[in-house]
Structures are given as C-alpha cells and as structure tokens.
C-alpha cells in the first residue's frame, strides 16, 4: 500500500508531501508522487507522528462491559494514537506472562494501534510481593513498563526492590503516587470545596509525599521511576528539582488535569470523579507550565471507561475515572497549543516521542514516536486544527460514555491516522 499525503503542515510548519510505502516514510518533500499511490489531500492539516499513550485502561480481560481491546483501540486510533500502553488492573490482573501475552495478542488481532501491555509491579496489585516482572519482560509482549496503577506501591522497601529489579531488562516503574492512609475513602481534592460539599478530601500532600520519596529512591538505586498523572503544583516542583539534580525521573499529566478544575464537582456529577482528583486552577496552571518547560515529559490519557451504572449513582458510590483517548489531542490543543504554551513540534514530543521513549517502544521493527522523516516508520496523524466540535458521548467509539467533556466545544479534529503506512482512520472514521 502506497500513499501520498499531499500538502500537510509537518509539525505545524510549511506544507509538504509525504510518501508512505511498505510501512515506512519513503520521502518527505514537495511534488512527491508514485505510480499507483493513493493520494490524501492534506491541505490545511497538521501532520504529527502517531500519538503514544502511556496510560490506557482497556479493561479486557474482565470488564468487557466497560471496554474491550477492540473498542478501546478503535477509540485510540480515532484519537490519533498509534500505540497505547494497557494498564495492568484487569481481572485477572496482568501480573503474569500469560495475561500480558493475551492482551498483546488481542491488540495485534484488532490491529488499530500497537498495544503494549503494562505489567503489575506486585502480584494481584496487592502491594505485598513482586509479580514475575522478568517473565513478563521476556514474554512475547516484551513488557518494559510496570505499574500497580489504581494502587500506589506504598511500601518503600517493595518500591525500592522493584526499581532495582527492573534494571536487569531496562524496565521502568510507573508509580501511582497516592499515600494510602492519607486518602482513605477520599472523594475529591481536599480544600474549601470538599469541606463545603461534605466530601472526603484527597490532599495534595498524599501525592507529593510519594513523589518526593520515589524520586529519592530512584536516585539512590539509579533506576528510572515514572510518575503517573501528576496533579498538583507541589508534585511539579518536586519533579523539577529532581530533574535539576539529574535524578532518573519522568512524569506524565492527563488531559483532564490540564483543563478541568475541582469546582466542577459542586453538582455531585460523578462524571467528574477521577483519581487523582481534579485540583485547583493554580494546580492546572502549574501543570501546564510544567508540561511546557519539559518538567512533565508526556501527556497520558488515563482513559478509564466505566459502564453507565457506575456513574449514574451517588458520588461516593461512583467509580473513579473518565474517558480520554478520543479527546486528548483536542484538549492538548486547547490548553497548550492554542494558548501558545507549546508549538506543534513540542506537542508532538509530549504526545509521541517522549512517551515512546519512556515506554521503551521507540526502537525496533515496531518503533513508535519516531520523527516524520525518510526511512522512519509511517506512523502519523493528520489533524485539522481549525475545526471544532461539541463532544457527544453517544458518538464516541469507546464502549463507555463517561466523558467529562459532554456538551463542551473542543478544537481540532483527527482526520486520518496511519499505522505503519496503513490508514486506521480516514476522514475522521475508522478506515
């Protein structure tokens, strides 16, 4: 399959053509053509490398009522992604070679994006003993990212050992930073609004205390720690200082923490219930600044589908989490690009190159997050930044409907996505 993408603005720059052949970018330049090639007129569209999500909940196996690998990866492709890292908190937990290989195979069969399973750090996410990290690393899924996401690896000794152990296969521990005792039954950001609403507070310090501990542990054992979904100004400041000191730390922020604030909780609508919780406008400003200056390496969706009955209920009874794959690029455009904090090239770094590097999937046959240059894999997304649309949950490809952006107008539209030269999305629809 050969494609000529004509007149795309590469990383938001001047219009150029891209020739895609046999899974690779064969040439980049003007006036490109090839016999028998299909032509995509990309006038006015911005071309970015295919997006890479470090933090996706595909729910399969176990909660196929919320999402499956098939539906979740469709949503990913429609959002401009060419790779997702599937979190380990499935049922059964992805804590053995068997489960991660199952998820990996389901991803291959679906074929919409590369599915990179994340392995659990501890057996059953119980935080008591290490899962068989090496077996998952050596499996066909070649797991490199390990996380108990949903739970914090709270035991400092266990966290230290995990960080040390994964050095043997260049792994990374992705920490869900949440001190458990400080957040028992926590429902929303601790502060004036939580006090008024009578909802149990989730204090910033519960995140920051773990971030501080883990950057110090990572430095001590010289192993890479990745901090999931940073949500507070204090966490940004700790990671900034850690990086200044050369500590081996990376961090991600979710789109929703870049846009939404805790005051949305005032109506007790569980669509806004998420973990870590929505924070203050001051935290949002710090997260945007941190992403702009590179303190925060990557945007990761924390796409967390839930069936309607887990959100159409009392706030306390509702599940934590919100959809993210199909709106991530639009939210980044709204919060970072349209505000002038990031240009498209830097946005591509935060959404593609950096997460691929952190996920150790930037090399090899199925390399992701590579530049759009001759000889590189033809993973790309074409986005129309001048379009805008009102989010309608019923139109999403995800099996679930728990988007926090319902009724909100967001800029940007994914027009096409290519995975190794093959279109997965064309004209905004699955190809």
């Amino acid at each position, binding site marked *: 399959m050969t494609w000529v993408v004509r007149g795309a603005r590469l990383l938001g720059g001047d219009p150029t053509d891209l020739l895609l052949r046999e899974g690779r970018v064969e040439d980049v330049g003007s006036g490109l053509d090839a016999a028998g090639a299909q032509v995509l007129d990309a006038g006015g569209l911005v071309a970015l490398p295919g997006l890479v999500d470090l933090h996706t909940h595909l729910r399969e196996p176990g909660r196929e009522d919320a999402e499956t690998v098939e539906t979740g990866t469709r949503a990913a492709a429609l959002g401009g992604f060419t790779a997702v890292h599937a979190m380990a908190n499935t049922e059964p937990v992805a804590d053995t070679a068997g489960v991660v290989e199952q998820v990996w195979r389901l991803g291959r069969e679906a074929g919409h994006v590369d599915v990179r399973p994340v392995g659990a750090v501890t057996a059953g996410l119980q935080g008591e003993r290490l899962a068989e990290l090496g077996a998952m690393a050596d499996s066909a899924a070649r797991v490199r990212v390990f996380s108990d996401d949903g739970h914090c690896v709270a035991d400092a000794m266990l966290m230290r050992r995990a960080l040390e152990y994964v050095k043997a296969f260049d792994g990374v521990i992705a920490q869900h930073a949440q001190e458990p005792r400080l957040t028992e039954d926590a429902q929303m950001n601790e502060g004036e609004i939580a*006090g008024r609403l009578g909802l149990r507070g989730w204090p910033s310090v519960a995140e920051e205390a773990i971030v501080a501990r883990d950057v110090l542990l990572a430095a001590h054992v010289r192993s890479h720690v990745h901090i999931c979904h940073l949500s507070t100004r204090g966490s940004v400041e700790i990671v900034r200082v850690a990086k200044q000191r050369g500590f081996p730390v990376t961090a991600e922020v979710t789109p929703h923490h870049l846009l939404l604030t805790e005051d949305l909780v005032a109506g007790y609508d569980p669509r806004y219930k998420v973990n870590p919780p929505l924070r203050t406008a001051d935290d949002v400003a710090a997260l945007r600044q941190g992403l702009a200056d590179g303190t925060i390496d990557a945007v990761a969706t924390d796409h967390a589908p839930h069936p309607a009955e887990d959100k159409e209920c*009392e706030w306390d009874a509702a599940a934590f989490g919100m959809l993210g794959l199909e709106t991530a690029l639009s939210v980044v455009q709204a919060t970072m690009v349209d505000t002038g904090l990031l240009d498209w090239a830097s946005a591509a770094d935060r959404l593609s190159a950096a997460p691929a590097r952190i996920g150790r999937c930037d090399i090899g046959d199925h390399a992701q997050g590579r530049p759009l240059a001759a000889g590189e894999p033809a993973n790309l997304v074409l986005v129309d930044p001048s379009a805008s649309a009102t989010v309608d949950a019923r139109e999403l490809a995800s099996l679930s409907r728990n988007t926090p952006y319902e009724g909100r107008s967001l800029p940007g539209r994914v027009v096409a996505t290519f995975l190794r030269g093959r279109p997965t999305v064309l004209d905004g629809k699955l190809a």
Partner: protein
Amino acid sequence: MRRHLLTAADLDRDDATLVLDTAAEMARLTEGRSVKKLPTLRGRTVVNLFFEDSTRTRTSFELAAKRLSADVVNFSAKGSSVSKGESLKDTALTLEAMGADAVVVRHWASGAPHRLAFSGWIRSSVVNAGDGTHEHPTQALLDAFTLRRHLGPLDGRRVTVVGDVLHSRVARSNVLLLSTLGAEVTLVGPPTLLPVGVDGWPCQTSYELDSALAKADAVMMLRVQRERMSAAFFPSAREYSRRYGLDARRFALLPDDAVVLHPGPMNRGMEITADVADSDRSVIVEQVTNGVYVRMAVLYLLLGGAS
C-alpha cells in the same frame, strides 16, 4: 422559594424568614389543640425516602406531612457504598412512577439529594433530610426557629457550635442559615475535627471552648461518635469530654439567659453532661417539637399548599 430544599444556601434571608414565620403560624394553628390536622396538603403525596436509619427525622417529617393531611409513604432503601442495593436511579424512577409530589430523602452519601433533584429521574420536589457529611437544612431551620423563640431576632446574636464539625451536616447547615439570618457563629472543636477550608466559611473558629462561652447567647453541642478516636481525631473519649464537653463548670461560664441546644441523639457524658442536658436552659426537647412545625412549613411552601 425554590422547588427543592437541598442546602441551607438555597435560602436567602427572605426565604428563611418566610419559612420561620410560616412555622410559627403552623405552631399557632396546632399547638395545644386537640385536633392538630390542617387540610392544606390533602391529596398530595409525600415520600420519606430513607437510605439511612433515622427514626427521629423520619417520624418528624411523617408527622409534619400528616398534620397537613398529605398522604405519606415511608420508603426504606437499604444499601451502602459497599453493598449497593437498589440504585438511587431505580428508586427514583419507581417513586416517579408512583406519582410522589415531594421526596424527603435521607442518605449516607453527600450530594445524593442533589443527584435526585437534578438528574432528571423525577419531577417532584426534593427535601434534603440529611446527606452524608454535607447538610441537614431542616435541622438548621428548627434550630433557628428555636433560637428565635428564645432570643428574638437573630441579628448580632452569638451562637457557639461545638464538636465534630468535620463530619457534621448539622454544623454546615447552621453556619449557612444562621449567618444568613445575621447571627455570629463560632465553631469550636479540636483542629482535627474542623474541615480544611473552614477559614472561608461565614463564621469564626476556635480550638478552645471556655473563652467562646462567656459571650454566647446560645451553645449548640454536636454529637461526637466515640469511634472517631480510632481514626486519631482525638486520643480518647475522656480527653474529648475534658476539652470540649459541656459540663457544669463550663455551663456556669455562659451568660444567664443563654440556651443550650443539641440536635440529638446525645451521648450523655461525652459532649454534654446529664445535668446540663436536663437543665431548665436546655431547649433540646423543644427542638424536637419545633422540628415538626418547621417541616410542616417547608412541605407547605414547597408544595404550594395554598393552591
């Protein structure tokens, strides 16, 4: 008046005064009469929807509705965040199908009445009868009604509220309502039991009780659950009583005409001693009586009983 009563913040000064004046009228029409029933809500249906046991509050609302000649249905829905029973949504749809005019809801989850009122599941008026650690607006109304009977207009009156403010829906509603009515509220409790962000509330706070008593026109003691000490909110029930309990010595610090309130049920010996609870300046039993008048007024006004 709005269509729902979900928080004391739903009441501006005029609304609150209207409720209290209407409650006074309800009292005038029924107090001391052998026939306590008024025909105003005949043919209307009030559902008491209780997800959490509270015999006192349910009985008070039931009596209020019956004295207005409404049909009353008590609907107990079991289930907690751990063991979900019938969902709030299905319960609401059921009540809607049965044609409830007002739903009085008590729930263990903060915000559940808000969900009921605005989710589009039901069209009836919703009255919050206590939700989680959020609010209990009719309790605040009955407290204000009781205070007004003893102190007259509340402008400039000093009310000291003592105890577990963090977990108290009574405290939240009282701070909002009493400040709306012009009273000066002081919250007193150990720092662990005052919520983060309380600085932004329309009240004063103090960690020390004795000094907050000398100028108080009224003191309201909140129920403190002994189990709180297991979560390290305070070291022991004895220490709590010593530092924040209303005993005879502290009672003597109050001005002579100050009154003592408690939303009940009391932990005698914990936040209040028996001799204070039973003293002639304790209005705790009267609060219960006034609760019926206030709830009559709320149901009457929400259901537009005059029409």
